[in-house]
């Protein structure tokens, strides 16, 4: 356990250094946040409420989800650093470490997300709040579970990207597989447009997908759309996806491990 904490902390420190790049990213997130907000405001001007969102909720959704792009990282496709190590052959070193391969990468990714929540989630919300009336959580229960849903979202995102990385390793094709994954994530996470606007037949499928657990579900929790049992159920859906996807990844790791060809060396 101490080993993983050390690894996570090293990852936090490493990613905390790239402040200029992170703020550059946050700036782009903010600009897109404003455009997305105005796109939705124009739609909400035709109706006061769509899919259970009023205009304040829709605008908050835009800035909140823009702020989640960095830390959740689900649109990155796979795990580019690992793919790079497969290509260079350094992966052999990772497989030899006296630590669990998947666990090592998971804590590294959680450590990466930490500084990103500070550098890339807070600025868009602040910028949005300067111009619009944002809807902040009013119940203490929601504030309490925010860290939980955020961590679960990162874990689900990691588990998805881990599977993409395995597929890319097996197929010797990194970019094709990871862009396919990015397409699914863009479509089903709610970042393209809130899933609440989806047509009736597609909405339940999208909302139950693992991608929804990375962006839409945490955003809905923030917006206070879940209370009591429903709040617990939303967290449970994230946890179930996290466990299921990590489990599948674990099973496949053993198989890929036997098949992996170390390049170079």
């Amino acid at each position, binding site marked *: 356990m101490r080993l993983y904490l050390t690894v996570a902390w090293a990852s936090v420190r490493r990613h905390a250094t*790239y402040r*200029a*790049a992170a*703020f*550059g*990213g946050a*700036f*782009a997130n*903010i*600009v*897109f946040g*404003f*455009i997305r907000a*105005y*796109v939705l*405001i*124009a*739609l909400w*001007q*035709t*109706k006061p409420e*769509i899919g259970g969102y009023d205009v304040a909720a829709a605008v908050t959704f835009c800035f909140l989800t823009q702020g989640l792009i960095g830390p959740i990282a689900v649109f990155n496709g796979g795990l580019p650093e690992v793919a790079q190590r497969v290509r260079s052959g350094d992966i052999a070193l990772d497989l030899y470490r006296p630590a669990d391969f998947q666990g090592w990468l998971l804590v590294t990714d959680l450590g990466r997300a930490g500084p990103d929540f500070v550098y890339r989630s807070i600025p868009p919300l602040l910028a949005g709040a300067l111009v619009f009336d944002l809807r902040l959580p009013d119940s203490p229960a929601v504030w309490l579970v925010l860290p939980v849903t955020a961590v679960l979202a990162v874990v689900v995102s990691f588990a998805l990207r881990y599977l993409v990385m395995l597929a890319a390793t097996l197929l010797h*094709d990194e*970019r*094709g597989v990871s*862009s*396919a994954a*990015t*397409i699914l994530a*863009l*479509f089903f996470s709610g970042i*393209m*447009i809130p899933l609440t*606007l*989806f*047509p009736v037949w597609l909405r339940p499928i999208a909302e139950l997908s693992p991608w929804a657990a990375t962006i839409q579900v945490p955003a809905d929790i923030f917006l206070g759309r879940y209370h009591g049992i429903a709040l617990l159920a939303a967290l449970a859906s994230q946890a179930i996806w996290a466990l299921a996807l990590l489990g599948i990844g674990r099973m496949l790791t053993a198989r890929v491990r036997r098949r992996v060809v170390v390049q170079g060396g």
Partner: protein
Amino acid sequence: MRAYWLLARTWTRAAAQYPASLAMLTVSQLVITGIDAVAILIIFQHTSSYAGFSLPEVMFLYGTSGVSFAIANALIGTVDQLGQHIRAGTFDAILLRPVPALVQVAADQFSPRRLGKLVQAALVLCIALATLDVQWTVDRIALVPVMIVSGVVIFAAVWVLGASYQFLAGEAAEAMNAATYGGNYVTQYPLSILGRDAIRALTWVIPLAFVNWMPALYILDQPDPLGLPGSVRFASPLVALLLCLVAALVWRAGVRHYRSTGS
């Protein structure tokens, strides 16, 4: 110019060594950029008139912006890698070669996969043109290619301006996405959804309004929220030319300002 095509052809041949990967990347580009179009379709599931524009009208804006952006991106999009060239020290080598630095940076890693977006945007534009309810007079028809070419030049100039900024701040690569990709995103929609100050900024500061919004107001016969004189709607080529000039000057200043990383 010749150097550009030579480099572009070399990179295309390099990419063609992996035909399956290239095909998959082109298709995935097509689909990824198509997601924006799906968002517009979903919006029109909830309303038939969006900020006073019909679905074919918004698709017309989307298509013209997308085609211009895709061509500019394919031609010059890799200039946003300038920061990396500077950090890795490869920009020194670029300056030594007897080909303009901008041409080398722009043709670097040229990939036909970037044209995946062009196919998708052109498709949307064709559907829009077929379904638009517009009196197609000669001047309206002539304005369409003019706005697309002006759009390419404006986007390309914005890209060069953003890249030049990296001479000052090497890690600004992501921030400039706000102007390029953000510019593409915002011009897909009627600019009237923005506040007036934002439209003014997009007209006079970063003149993205001239990519497609101004000429489209004339073609679609829509009112200008800023109430500018009608001639402004035809100013796109002039604005494109001016912006190009500014971008060239700034780029030159940037190259002169450049100091090698020195390691």
